[in-house]
């Protein structure tokens, strides 16, 4: 495992939960501060992954386009709880690795919330969306899952239903429930389950339809501009 991946896991498992816990106690619009803190913490492993050189403009440009696509995938589809955003975040992770997936997921959650309304749940969403991109990056880049559409679709479905969805539902327990207990956790998870299923179905469909062409495009860009030539890159 690379050094930057270890750093990413450390940030995800330790630093971000602590930030969310402390940030949940801030009054008023304190969630903006929490959100910015989460983004800042995430940037640390991302910039550490370019061990010697600073990130070039081209890497950031590719990530910006993927982020714009993910935001569009959430806004353009008019059906509630049936959004392509998770699939696009995961595709970024699949083709550029866990760090890039996390950054794009967090940024997509933050930006798309300007269309849906910001709230106290915003830092949680950033964490959960980013975690989706991260797990896809670990599975397909570090553990070398084959990048076939149906494998990506099955992976996307299970990752949405059993990973991103529960992470999002936990925020409900911490923010809205009067007490934090096993029963309230079960209630939040149960009430979120149908929503997670429908999101997972949309993710799988998007992976089946758009997975292959998008991966091809991104691989072409990587080859053409040498974005991941050394193993320490994106």
């Amino acid at each position, binding site marked *: 495992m690379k050094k930057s991946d270890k750093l990413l896991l450390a940030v995800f498992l330790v630093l971000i939960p602590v930030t969310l816990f402390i940030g949940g106690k801030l009054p008023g619009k304190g969630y903006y501060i929490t959100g910015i803190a989460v983004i800042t913490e995430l940037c640390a492993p991302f910039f550490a992954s370019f061990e010697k050189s600073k990130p*070039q*403009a*081209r890497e*950031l*440009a*590719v990530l*910006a*386009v993927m982020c714009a*696509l993910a935001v569009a995938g959430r806004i353009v589809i008019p059906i509630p709880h049936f959004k392509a955003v998770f699939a696009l975040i995961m595709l970024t992770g699949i083709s550029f690795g866990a760090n890039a997936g996390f950054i794009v997921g967090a940024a997509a959650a933050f930006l798309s919330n300007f269309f849906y309304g910001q709230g106290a749940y915003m830092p949680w969403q950033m964490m959960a969306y980013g975690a989706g991109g991260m797990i896809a990056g670990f599975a397909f880049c570090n553990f070398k899952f084959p990048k076939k559409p149906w494998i990506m679709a099955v992976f996307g479905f299970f990752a949405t239903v059993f990973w991103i969805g529960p992470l999002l539902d936990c925020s409900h327990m911490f923010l809205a429930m009067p007490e934090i207990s096993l029963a309230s956790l079960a209630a939040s998870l149960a009430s979120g389950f149908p929503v997670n299923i429908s999101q997972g179905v949309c993710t799988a469909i998007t992976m089946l339809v758009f997975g292959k*062409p*998008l991966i091809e*495009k*991104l691989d*072409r*860009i990587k080859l*053409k*501009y040498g974005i991941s030539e050394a193993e320490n890159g994106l």
Partner: protein
Amino acid sequence: MGFEQCHPAINFIYFAVVIYGAVSFRHPIFLMISFLCAFAYSIKRKGVRALLFNLALLPLTALFALYYCSYTHFGITVLNKNFIGNNITLEALLCGASLGISASSAIMWLSSFYCIITTDKIIYLFSELSPKAAMLLSVLLRIVPRIKTEAQRISLARFAIGRGITRGNIILRAKNFIGIFSALITETLDSLICVSESMQSRGSTLRGRKAFSIYRFDNRDRACVICMFALITLTAMGISLNQTDMIFDPKIIINPITPMSYLFYFAYAALCLMPLALELRTQYRFKKARKNVNTYPQR
């Protein structure tokens, strides 16, 4: 002198203040002042097109008020009951109307904002802060028009080989659309990388770099700043005395109108009319000066 010839910082501060006022004030007189001034100024800048656009905003405002009062039911003055049995109240209707008016005046201000604050001004202002931010902004500001023209070119080329989005039945059209969209994504990725690479190679991100600028802060700008900030201060006094606010829930409450209130109305109206007055005065002086010029010297 048009308002666009003032220093960019003045334009920027002016629009920030005026749009803040349009969005946050709830008092009917302040709302009407902002709405009418935005209406007049956008017509002065953009002519008949702005007039048509602004007139189209009016029915939308009315529709929004109806929509708003159909799903919020606070207030004590009940006008009617809808088919589920919820109250339709006067307060909710007026609250919706005021939200609609403030949104449409903000849109009109924004349309004159885009007319006056051009991209070079934004880049000039931000390059003072940081050259990297200015480069990122200039790439981002160009990206939407760039994608638009590229989409037109791609769809024209696809149309020429018989794969336009106007050909065939609905399934074929969807397929053709996806083809165009896919080409557009590839092109955007490629061109964005090229643009940022080339801008970096030419030193756009170097420390201490400044953007091209033809702006200087002269005496006219100083006069503008003094007037503008005097009027802003008076309006801010109105805000701190709760003269700009209005409460809708549960009952409509406005602070009493005193002689001082007229001062605040006057200050806000003068602030909103400032660019329009500046431009009309210039036009008038120009015409007057022209009368004295003998275009054909008589012998």
